């Protein structure tokens, strides 16, 4: 088979990894971002206990995705990191903060509140910046020549990524909230989530409007239409199914899926589009690694993804006995 097949295959695989990351780690991040607003004794710790065994495994999808980008499109990683190094470090810093803070929030009980706030900061950093980068990429990067990105920070500020990032944060929090609802459908939480739905509705309108306004050529592709439709379906379904256990979360998964279809439709077949200079864009074909590497990545990816999903599913099952709250290994480092 020819190289195009492998290029496209690996590209789709990478999109799949980032999709799984946002689907799974999305609710961890959403819960992280809800922590400052948790009222009442032990509410925040309760929220953390829903994600404690999972966030690390979910985060691995990001590491896998990044690894595959490095392997399959090495030029992309070099170019991007060269241009947005500091903000990017900040994003990684957010992941580091979240990891350490979640872990210590159940060991260092004396400062639990502080650790929850740190975990929230980390989650906002990761979500906000990650979406901002994605938005910038979708809109097109400020290339100043073939293979050269602008070094001037002002060139990276524009309306679409800002809107995308803000609206996206709401979508992610909704994802976390419905996940919490699925784990523990308490009455107070139902009410709060119901109210938050209006924010989700607002964010969705902004998102769709922004897409049409800034990326019109993309928004009208059939795949994009399907994605947008799925997204709207998820938003409305989420409201209707609010009181049916687990269903709001499932609809929220539709949101995320729809969004990624939109993203895929807007991007393909370009990896890094150039703003206003389409001829400088990095396409799947022009940025990819040699065939031999692509082959290995595709084979390994296709073989292992089902296996990983299978054993991850097993661990989720282990921690989903009804009615029981997840106990962490239950020690504190206080004397």
């Amino acid at each position: 088979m020819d190289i195009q097949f492998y290029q496209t295959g690996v590209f789709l695989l990478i999109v799949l990894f980032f999709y799984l990351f946002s689907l799974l780690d999305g609710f961890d991040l959403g819960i992280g971002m809800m922590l400052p607003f948790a009222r009442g004794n032990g509410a925040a710790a309760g929220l953390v206990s829903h994600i404690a065994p999972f966030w690390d495994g979910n985060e691995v999808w990001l590491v896998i995705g990044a690894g595959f980008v490095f392997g399959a499109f090495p030029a992309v990683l070099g170019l991007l990191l060269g241009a947005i190094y500091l903000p990017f470090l900040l994003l990684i810093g957010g992941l580091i903060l979240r990891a350490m803070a979640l872990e210590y929030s159940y060991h260092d009980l004396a400062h639990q509140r502080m650790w929850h706030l740190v975990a929230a900061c980390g989650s906002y950093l990761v979500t906000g910046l990650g979406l901002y980068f994605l938005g910038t990429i979708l809109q097109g990067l400020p290339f100043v020549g073939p293979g050269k990105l602008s070094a001037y920070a002002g060139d990276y500020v524009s309306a679409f990524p800002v809107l995308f990032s803000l609206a996206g944060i709401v979508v992610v929090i909704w994802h976390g909230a419905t996940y919490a609802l699925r784990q523990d459908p308490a009455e107070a939480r139902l009410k709060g989530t119901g109210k938050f739905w209006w924010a989700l509705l607002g964010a969705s309108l902004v998102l769709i409007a922004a897409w049409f306004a800034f990326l019109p050529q993309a928004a009208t592709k059939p795949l994009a239409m399907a994605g947008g439709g799925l997204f709207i379906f998820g938003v409305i379904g989420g409201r209707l199914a609010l009181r049916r256990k687990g269903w709001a979360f499932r609809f929220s998964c539709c949101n995320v899926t729809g969004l990624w279809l939109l993203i895929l439709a807007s991007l393909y077949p370009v990896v890094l589009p150039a703003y206003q200079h389409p001829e400088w864009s990095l396409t799947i074909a022009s940025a990819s690694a040699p065939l031999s590497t692509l082959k290995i990545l595709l084979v390994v990816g296709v073989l292992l993804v089902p296996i990983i999903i299978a054993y991850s599913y097993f661990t989720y099952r282990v921690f989903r006995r009804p009615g029981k709250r997840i106990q962490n290994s239950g020690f504190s480092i206080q004397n």
Partner: protein
Amino acid sequence: QFGVSIGIHYLFPITTLGLTLFIVIFETLFLAKRQEPYRSISVFLVKVLGLIFVAGVATGLLMPFSIGANWARFSTYAGAILGALISVEAITAFALESAFISILLFGRERVSPFVYWLSAVLVFVGAHLSGFWIVAANSWLQTPAGYAIEDGRVVLTNLSQAIFNHSTLIRFAHVVTAAWLAGAFLTAGIAAYYLARARHEAFARKLLAIALPIALAAALAQPLIGHFHIMEVLEHNPEKDAAYEGIFKSVNGAPLLAFGIPDAKNQVIHFAVGAPYVLSLLESGDPMGRVKGLEEFPRENWPPVNVIFTTFHLMIMLGMAMIAVAVFGVVQMWCRKLEAMRWYLLLLPWLIPLPYLANEIGWIGAEIGRQPWLIYGVMRTAEGSSITLPLWQLSVSFAGILLVYTAITVMTFVSVRKLIQKGPN
């Protein structure tokens, strides 16, 4: 920058490798005998592992990206191989490890002892797989194989040659043994700490009884593996070997130096102490065999002799010291006198840093010994590190990374210490 962050990162994964070994041992014992103190030992070690693991993840997240950022040209050039290895590492090892460590950390009450044991084994496998891939990537830089160069970049031609390049297996053996040594000294130190204070004695006795022999075995294996490692270095990176041994001029019947202060400018080793003919014997099997000196290689291909001669010999001295410590401990344990030797028990916890030092020094020597090459014989470091970032950004990021990494290390150290002081209950 990358050197510092990976140097810190490295502390945690080796601890993970060592700890998972012990967790598997004690889970197996518990599964077989179903009695204390095996279970509480494992419970305790899992707690330590939790703290170490999260620090390993937190410090590791940055690693692949900092390769991309600091060596943009290098990563584009060699991404076809290194990127492939790192992707495979993430998808085979990280995923496995982090999925099942959730069961180790949170699931003891939720799964049967057998499934729990299986999870421990899978975490052990995942951690070692991860070490394997990263060592393979690093070894490829030292002894590249299975590649061709097309259109100004590296193209993978033979996967298994690239993975199992000339130094992967021997380096992996050396690194894993080094990690187990670190785990053994850590657990032995913990056990000795309790024994010396007469706390948790049943627990500590069993732990020590397993940790010390493992420490001994690993410490004894290390020079042997190291010897084969240096033979591989001799064959594939000969100038590095000459620098390790401090041989400037080719000679017959070269001495094995144990100590000395190298002086690359004047090409001599001051205060050299060593065993005559032994190096020739080790390297060629003949006491009068010829050993190539650095003079036979072009000066611009010399690694920084002073640094790597020193680090190499420090590593070996540390190795010898650890053998001494472990032999003494095991012999005394055999004679059932160990618990009377309070000074030894008090000393052991202070020796926990030894294997860590040897690990760090070993890597630094191996990495600096690769200079001036980034990929041995293929790309020089100066060519690969085409850093496009302005200086202030580099300084800011360096300061930030240093701060965060130091904070993580200190936090982890303090918490593990508190956990140990608090004890297994």
